[in-house]
């Protein structure tokens, strides 16, 4: 190993250099502390054996300067003293010396102490190497994480644009909606559209699980669930004889969806799908494992509709239940995902159906849009953070007074 030997006494320096050479070390010599410091500053020195008493810069001061400097690696310093008194040792240790040799130096002592220092330096260098590796890996991880995060943000941006916008001009109804994804991208989707001149379709679905797989499935579903029969919509059936399309009842549409979306893993989705027949004011729902929609009618308590049903994608050839609700102008229907009722507060208590119903009763007079905004705020407050743990989606329709044909 390369050792910087510092001594103003040329005779002592020559003897010590010879000893170190014989022990297999490469020796660089300096005649005083200042000259030694210049060599240390230049780098490539990690081991110093220095005399204490020297002109210009004493050994102990050289040691202090080395410790105070911002050098690349650790420098191991052995101070040599002729005096060997107690106070010298304390001062030397304070200055940061690693070890001491008492003059005259015995070859055996020199060998043992240099070897001890060498061992410590090797450990230190190993640690520094590990730290560099860790820093490098950390940097790579950080870059990878940023890449994934950027991708997710881009995916969320795309998803927001892929989601169909519920129709604002569907005849006979007004609608409002809110979507608050739990991560960057959502597994909840919904829509409201005109199915034909007398029927409106409305749905909200929730793909089980979160993140990318759920979002990919929800985007696929949003593409499939279109009122445009020419693209093989499961919501309509084309009569081969006449070429005209007919709106399927919701239970038929859900059955068809279930047939098409049988998953090989445990992935499924829950859905509520309604077809509103404008002339008869009848809204027919099929419920597939999804939370019950709520009817908000002026003058009565808000009402949960339906009792449930099997989710979609688990078993083929399942029949789905349906139910009718007759609406009147001013009536509202709220569809929502389970993220609404399952949001828990700091005590672990879920927001729940009863709180949702009470909120809708108290806030009846608000406009449809305001109502959803306040509800979202109420749920966020309950969850005591703006970070929802599950997707929260809300879709509401109101039968307008002018909708009577």
């Amino acid at each position, binding site marked *: 190993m390369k050792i910087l030997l510092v001594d103003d006494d040329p005779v002592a320096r020559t003897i010590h250099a010879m000893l170190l050479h014989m022990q297999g070390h490469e020796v660089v010599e300096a005649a005083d502390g200042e000259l030694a410091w210049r060599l240390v500053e230049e780098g490539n020195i990690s081991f110093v054996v220095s005399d204490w008493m020297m002109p210009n810069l004493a050994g102990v001061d050289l040691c202090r300067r080395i410790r105070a400097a911002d050098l690349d690696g650790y420098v191991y310093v052995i101070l040599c003293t002729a005096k060997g008194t107690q106070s010298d040792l304390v001062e030397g240790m304070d200055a940061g010396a690693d070890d001491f040799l008492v003059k005259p130096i015995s070859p055996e002592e020199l060998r043992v102490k240099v070897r001890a220092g060498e061992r410590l330096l090797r450990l230190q260098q190993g640690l520094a190497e590990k730290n560099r590796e860790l820093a490098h890996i950390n940097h790579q991880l950080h870059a990878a994480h940023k890449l994934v995060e950027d991708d997710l943000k881009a995916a969320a941006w795309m998803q927001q644009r892929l989601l169909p916008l519920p129709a604002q001009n569907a005849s006979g109804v007004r609608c409002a909606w809110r979507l608050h994804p739990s991560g960057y991208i959502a597994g909840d989707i919904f829509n409201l559209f005109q199915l034909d001149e007398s029927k409106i379709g409305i749905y909200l679905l929730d793909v*089980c*699980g979160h993140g990318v797989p759920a979002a990919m499935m929800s985007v696929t579903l949003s593409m499939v669930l279109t009122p445009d029969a020419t693209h093989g919509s499961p919501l309509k059936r084309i009569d081969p004889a006449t070429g005209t399309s007919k709106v399927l009842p919701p239970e038929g549409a859900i059955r068809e969806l279930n047939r098409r979306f049988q998953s090989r*893993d*445990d992935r499924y989705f*829950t859905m509520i799908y309604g077809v509103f027949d404008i002339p008869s004011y009848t809204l027919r729902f099929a419920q597939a494992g999804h939370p019950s929609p709520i009817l908000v009618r002026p003058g009565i308590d808000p009402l949960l509709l339906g009792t449930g*049903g099997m*989710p979609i994608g688990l078993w083929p050839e399942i029949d789905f239940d349906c139910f009718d609700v007759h609406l009147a102008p001013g009536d509202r229907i709220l569809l929502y995902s389970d993220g609404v009722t399952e949001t828990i507060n700091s005590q672990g208590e879920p927001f729940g159906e009863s709180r949702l119903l009470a909120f809708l009763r108290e806030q009846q007079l608000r406009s449809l849009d305001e109502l959803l905004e306040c509800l979202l705020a109420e749920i966020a407050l309950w969850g005591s953070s703006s970070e929802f743990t599950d997707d929260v989606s809300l879709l509401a329709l109101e039968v307008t007074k002018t909708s009577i044909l």
Partner: protein
Amino acid sequence: MQFEESSILDVLVVRVRESRIVADIAAQFKEGLIAYVTSGKRRIVLDLSQVTFIDSSGLGALIGSLKAIGAGGELALCGAREGVISMLKLTRMDKVFRIFATPEEAAASLSLHNGANSETSQP
């Protein structure tokens, strides 16, 4: 993910020692149950008395385990609390899983050693 196992007759009773079966542990949960199935257990009662909440991923894991057991076996539930029961009813899983009040009742019904209940009487 913690399970506590015991046996009643020829039925394995697995007590779920988690309060929430949700997305974070759903995969582990299913793996654990599948491991019982691959080790030859075909009559399993899942004791849910400590579970307060099952989310959609948790339900997916339950259904996946049921499918893994297949026609030759049975996975029944017991001790489910009100919140869990209403979720099972909403998704009609009360028609898919047999649900019992206690592990003893469930085991008595599932066991092949029970004279009133033979393999052929199973659906």
